[in-house]
């Protein structure tokens, strides 16, 4: 670890915080119905779609969201299956097989962007643009819309409605994601990311060898990939690829872009519920985890791998397997923690080749529920469910009826919150357990020993958490993994959303009780401490046994010099 490394980490997190405060203020204005300069575009879309932005109750809102996502899924599946008949296919790729198309369509609709394929060798430019780029926008916009809906539920008092899904969806895309993407995409080209419709260029090296270099409209997808916390790369190596991330500067911008929208959500929340301190408390909790996680990964990677050092390798560079020279360890550590604290899943180094403790942190960040700060929108509604649980536990400790932002938290909300929270461990541990004994599933492993179990655990955590990064040694392009990971992504997204929206409906209908001497303040140090504790204890209790068998035991085996 170096001072220069820490300086970069702190500077980027500070810039993200500043950007998030401003963006949060802007988004609060947008979703409170203030007119922006792009309003005429919105009116045209509403007229064509036959939308009167009438307020919806939680069931109508959720159904509209589900209908929209179902339509998106079907189209995305169809585009891949019909790839060979569609335009902009310079490399002449044939149709994507059924199981892979199912997995990939589910992956992009749920904002996961898990990729069982290598982009440059599987997908045409048309599918990447009209399929993946579109859902990079729309899955992120869906997340923002849902987060805005639950924010309104806390802000309102004694009403049944929480906004209009179509209105929120269009506003999220038009006013937030698209303008930011245009700016970031152009900056990315200036920093060296290609943007062309050409498929590839053949070069002849100085040694006379032919090198085929894959190209494409990469910058435009890269921008929304980061801003929408999607993480699905145009190219197989994702943000480790020099065409997705050519320099330290593009790396700084990538980290900033992937964090800023999710980090703005709690600030938007604070403004919309009329108490900015509430949003700040959530933000501080999220960034405490990012900072702690980065410190652990940075330390573990700088310490390196004693088995490799014993082979006569200089330990001063740390662990360089799977890493690029141009980023350095500090920016690799921050990227790995940010992408998993978010539900982004872009990677600028191969997580499979991190040291055991360096790999444990990203895995655990995903398992903690993708709330630190989580995906755009999904991070906010995710942490609100945990906040509700926290005030409930705090209420139990002192024997008071808990309330959050003046809304009484009762048995109904708690049941729904538990329903949402339990779906993740069920999916992750359930499918991992089956895969760990199924010969069909085990034949996909690239690494033996505890690292193999880490590969499986990481895959299902990433899918259910809608993250999308991988311990990519695992060959996930098989019918077993494509299908079960697709189901995990579906449950991790929608089986979480529906109970969460039911909570929103129930809270909106409650009248606010004014704060009294007896109410527990949810903006101070005490609440942040409790929230951190609940996140850690919840995650620890659920996943510690499985983690002990994978990265933790591998750490001690590595120190003992054992290989598999």
């Amino acid at each position: 670890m170096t001072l220069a490394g820490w300086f970069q980490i702190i500077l980027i997190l500070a810039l993200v915080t500043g950007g998030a405060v401003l963006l949060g203020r802007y988004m609060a204005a947008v979703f409170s119905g203030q007119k922006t300069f792009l309003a005429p575009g919105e009116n045209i879309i509403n007229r064509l779609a036959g939308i009167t932005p009438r307020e919806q109750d939680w069931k109508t809102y959720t159904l509209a969201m589900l209908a929209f996502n179902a339509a998106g899924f079907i189209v995305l599946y169809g585009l891949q299956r019909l790839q060979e008949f569609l335009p902009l296919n310079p490399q002449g790729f044939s149709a994507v097989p059924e199981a892979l198309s199912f997995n990939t369509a589910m992956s992009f609709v749920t904002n996961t962007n898990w990729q069982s394929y290598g982009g440059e060798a599987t997908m045409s430019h048309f599918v990447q643009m009209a399929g993946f780029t579109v859902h990079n926008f729309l899955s992120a916009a869906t997340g923002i819309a849902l987060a805005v809906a639950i924010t309104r539920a806390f802000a309102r008092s004694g009403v049944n409605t929480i906004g209009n899904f179509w209105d929120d969806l269009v506003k999220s895309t038009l006013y937030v994601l698209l303008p930011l993407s245009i700016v970031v995409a152009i900056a990315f080209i200036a920093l060296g990311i290609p943007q062309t419709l050409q498929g590839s260029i053949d070069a002849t090296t100085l040694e006379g060898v032919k090198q085929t270099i894959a190209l494409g409209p990469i910058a435009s997808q890269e921008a929304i990939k980061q801003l929408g916390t999607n993480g699905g790369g145009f190219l197989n190596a994702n943000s480790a690829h020099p065409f997705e991330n050519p320099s330290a500067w593009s790396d700084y911008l990538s980290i900033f872009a992937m964090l800023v929208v999710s980090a703005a959500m709690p600030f938007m929340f604070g403004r919309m519920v009329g108490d900015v301190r509430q949003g700040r408390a959530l933000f501080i909790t999220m960034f405490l985890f990012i900072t702690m996680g980065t410190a652990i990964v940075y330390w573990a990677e700088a310490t390196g791998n004693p088995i490799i050092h014993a082979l006569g390798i200089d330990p001063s560079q740390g662990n360089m397997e799977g890493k690029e020279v141009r980023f350095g360890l500090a920016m690799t550590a921050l990227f790995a923690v940010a992408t998993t604290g978010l539900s982004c899943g872009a990677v600028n180094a191969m997580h499979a080749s991190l040291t055991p403790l360096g790999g444990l942190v990203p895995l655990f960040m995903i398992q903690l529920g993708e709330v630190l700060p989580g995906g755009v929108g999904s991070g906010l509604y995710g942490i609100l469910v945990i906040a509700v649980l926290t005030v409930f536990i705090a209420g139990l400790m002192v024997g008071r009826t808990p309330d959050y932002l003046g809304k009484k938290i009762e048995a109904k909300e708690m049941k729904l919150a538990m329903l949402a929270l339990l779906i993740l461990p069920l999916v992750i541990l359930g499918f991992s357990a089956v895969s760990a004994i199924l010969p069909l599933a085990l034949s996909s492993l690239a690494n033996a020993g505890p690292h193999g179990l880490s590969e499986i655990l990481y895959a299902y955590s990433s899918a259910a958490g809608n993250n999308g990064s991988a311990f990519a040694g695992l060959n996930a392009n098989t019918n077993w993994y494509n299908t079960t990971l697709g189901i995990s992504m579906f449950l991790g997204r929608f089986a979480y959303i529906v109970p969460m929206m039911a909570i929103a409906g129930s809270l909106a209908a409650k009248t606010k009780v004014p704060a009294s001497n007896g109410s527990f303040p949810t903006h101070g140090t005490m609440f942040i401490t409790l929230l951190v504790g609940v996140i850690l204890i919840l995650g620890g209790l659920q996943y510690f046994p499985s983690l002990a068998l994978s990265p933790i035991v591998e750490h001690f085996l590595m120190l003992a010099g054992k290989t598999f």
Partner: protein
Amino acid sequence: MLTHLRPAIVILTIMTLLTGIAYPLAITGIGQVLLSQAANGSMTIKDDKIIGSTLIGQAWTSDKYFWGRPSAAGDGYNAAASSGSNLGPTSLKLMDRIKTDSDRLRNSIAAKLLPADSITASGSGLDPHISPEFAMLQIARVAKARNLSEGQIKVVVEANIDKPIAGIFSQPRVNVLLLNMALDGLSSSPNG
């Protein structure tokens, strides 16, 4: 559910046209007009032939040239199949590979310790850079193969080290393709 069908289909269509067609094509247009070198992959041309992209690493095998890092992209530096090794920290395969690669390097490198980047595969398999330490260790071999003094080669290497800006931003590194092109320029000059 049926009442949601029309807005679902119409918005999906409009958004596909807007974010899936108009947005990437507009960005392509802007990139091609204003930033065409970068937008087309930062290709380097010598004698009217494309010899590679300055951003993409290449396989180097000749003693005359500086070598890059090991690569797990295809058979090595396959720029149409980027990939890391994805081998974990306790992988026997990884340790065997490191032994093979370090034995090969030690044929021409006398130093006791090898820098980590010289024997580890990058995340993309296309890392265009090596550390200045790794470049320095290769000077003796390149000088011998080119029949030049080590001092002459060292000057070129030092001119090709990218240092962090203000000592903080970005990493110290050497772009292997640019270094090798500079070397070729050196050998062909009359008093080289």
